[in-house]
């Protein structure tokens, strides 16, 4: 299969593929039980049940708690999604489900339920890649519905579970990983730092709120993997030119907090939060925009839960504008993990005539981005 052109997806002769397939998508890779329904690129339902509150006292997602919550939420979430869309399961053309990457036990609940739906309703099943689904959601933007992604689209995905920059040659057949975090995900760094600062969970909104009252230049926290030996040059890129690392930043914050505490001083929580946020957002956006520029990306899509961070949006907007890259940020409800993005990618796969998955597909907790469907 070749890259998508600006024409409708070519059909093989004698084959009739639905132009705008009706697809139900299931997402259970982390702490959101998401079921979405789309018709082609039209969003019909996006129902999400979150177990976030149950993880709050642990300061991070507990896989077993997430998996338990998925099982209990599945049927009610399904019913509500079907109700919202005003359809029945027998009407759909296919069922799509996140096969990976994500938490293994959590993925298995969604996958097993999806197999049950597909089997009972006699529908084709598509096991899809969670990261690529985050990109697929870009097609659902209600303001300017697209039937295809623009050529040379890239995606910056930032959440509690992942941090990647992708190049999307074709949503259904060719996606490349340009760079990713080599340790903590950016959202994880927010959670851990919020924990350190006693700001609560989830860390993203908590840090952002504290940062609003702080000075982002008060502390100069490290920007991971920005030394020349890691970055190299455009002509001779270093090993980590487009990669991130947030573990050093986390350690630097911990050290700063310790210094104040051992000196018996009040910890300047607002300034630390603001400086930490600035460090994350600065390195995320500078590396993402450079990776985009060096790989001919003209349109960049932002996805993942951290997309809700106002400072990230601001700085990314600024830097994309300077680099003449068109930035697209879907509504927050479509940036965080949800079933609609899975359905959106599923619809593209159906329309492109991609073979459905078998009933035996496994959950792949470390599914590489190149494996768009399994």
């Amino acid at each position: 299969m070749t890259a998508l052109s600006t024409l409708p997806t070519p059909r093989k002769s004698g084959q009739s593929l639905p132009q705008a397939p009706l697809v139900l998508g299931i997402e259970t890779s982390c702490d959101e039980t998401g079921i979405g329904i789309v018709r082609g690129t039209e969003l019909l339902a996006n129902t999400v049940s979150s177990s976030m509150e149950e993880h709050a006292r642990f300061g991070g997602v507990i896989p077993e708690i997430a998996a338990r919550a998925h099982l209990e939420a599945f049927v009610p979430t399904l019913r509500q999604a079907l109700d919202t869309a005003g359809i029945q399961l027998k009407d759909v053309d296919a069922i799509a489900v996140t096969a990976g990457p994500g938490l293994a036990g959590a993925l298995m609940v969604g996958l097993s339920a999806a197999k049950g739906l597909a089997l009972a309703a006699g529908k084709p099943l598509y096991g899809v890649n969670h990261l690529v689904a985050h990109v697929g959601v870009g097609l659902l933007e209600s303001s300017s519905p697209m039937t295809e992604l623009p050529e040379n689209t890239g995606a910056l995905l930032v959440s509690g579970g992942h941090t990647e920059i992708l190049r999307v040659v074709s949503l259904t057949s060719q996606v490349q990983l340009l760079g990713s975090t080599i340790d903590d995900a950016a959202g994880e760094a927010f959670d851990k730092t919020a924990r350190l600062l006693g700001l609560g969970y989830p860390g993203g909104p908590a840090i952002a709120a504290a940062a609003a009252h702080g000075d982002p230049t008060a502390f100069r926290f490290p920007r991971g993997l920005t030394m020349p030996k890691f970055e190299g040059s455009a002509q001779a890129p270093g090993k980590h030119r487009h990669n991130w690392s947030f573990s050093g930043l986390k350690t630097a914050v911990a050290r700063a907090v310790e210094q104040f505490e051992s000196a018996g001083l009040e910890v300047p929580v607002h300034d630390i939060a603001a400086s930490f946020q600035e460090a994350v957002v600065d390195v995320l956006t500078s590396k993402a925009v450079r990776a985009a520029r060096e790989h001919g990306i003209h349109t960049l899509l932002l996805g993942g839960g951290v997309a809700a961070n106002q400072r990230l949006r601001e700085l990314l907007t600024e830097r994309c504008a300077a680099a003449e890259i068109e930035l697209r940020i879907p509504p927050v409800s479509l940036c965080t993990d949800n079933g609609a993005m899975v359905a959106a990618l599923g619809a593209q796969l159906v329309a492109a005539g991609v073979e459905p998955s078998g009933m035996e597909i496994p959950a792949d907790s470390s599914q590489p981005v190149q494996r768009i469907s399994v």
Partner: protein
Amino acid sequence: MKNYHGGVILAIDSSAGASVAVLDQGRVLAQWRTSETTDHAEVLAAAVAETMRQAGVDGGGLGGVVVGVGPGPFTGLRVGLALAHALAEVWQVPLHGLCSLDSLAHRAVTQSPAGDPAGDSASDPAGDHLGGPVEAGVEFLAVSDARRREVYWARYRSRAAAGPDHAASAELVDGPHVSAASELPDLPAVGIGAGLYPEALKARSAMEASWLPDAVELGQIAQTPGPARLREPLPLYLRESDAKVPAQVRPRTAAS
């Protein structure tokens, strides 16, 4: 809740190995099982499809779905439950849970090897190795593997058949629980847990100490007239999620 009277049902258990059975009034139409404990998510849905095909029934023709709710290792257990929830939802048929240990107890009192459609142990060559049906009024344990040097267990009492057309049954006396094998009551035991801890548990026979819960008996119990054993179709975890509040999560008293 009442037990099922007549009709064809689908039974699924994924509390230890995994198994699927389609039964008509307690008679097994088709069945499948594996003792593998780690690949439920891959194999179980296809096994249901194949077992239904072999039994010659489709979802619309079912009177219900019953599913083993454990206790059992969480991830595998949830695979069976998630599948059962989805199937019952689409087919619009009732869904009920059964304690998976009930399956072992049922087998102990009837001595019908899982999968013997006649339900007659005399025709089974392995019958030699069985301890014989548990006598009426006698108490015993059904024990499965809970890992981490513990077992899932429940205490049952055998009850005589109510009449010529009825089978003996096992009445739940206590449990299910999760404990170290050494803490269990001193009673004869059946199930793989007895085989794993021979120093602590008195297995009724070597064969019975290898038994895993099975969908066949769950289906039979569900279709047995008498007091209902059906439960909510939600897992019997018996253990907390193990999550610990990290030391770093503590209220910071310093003003900011």
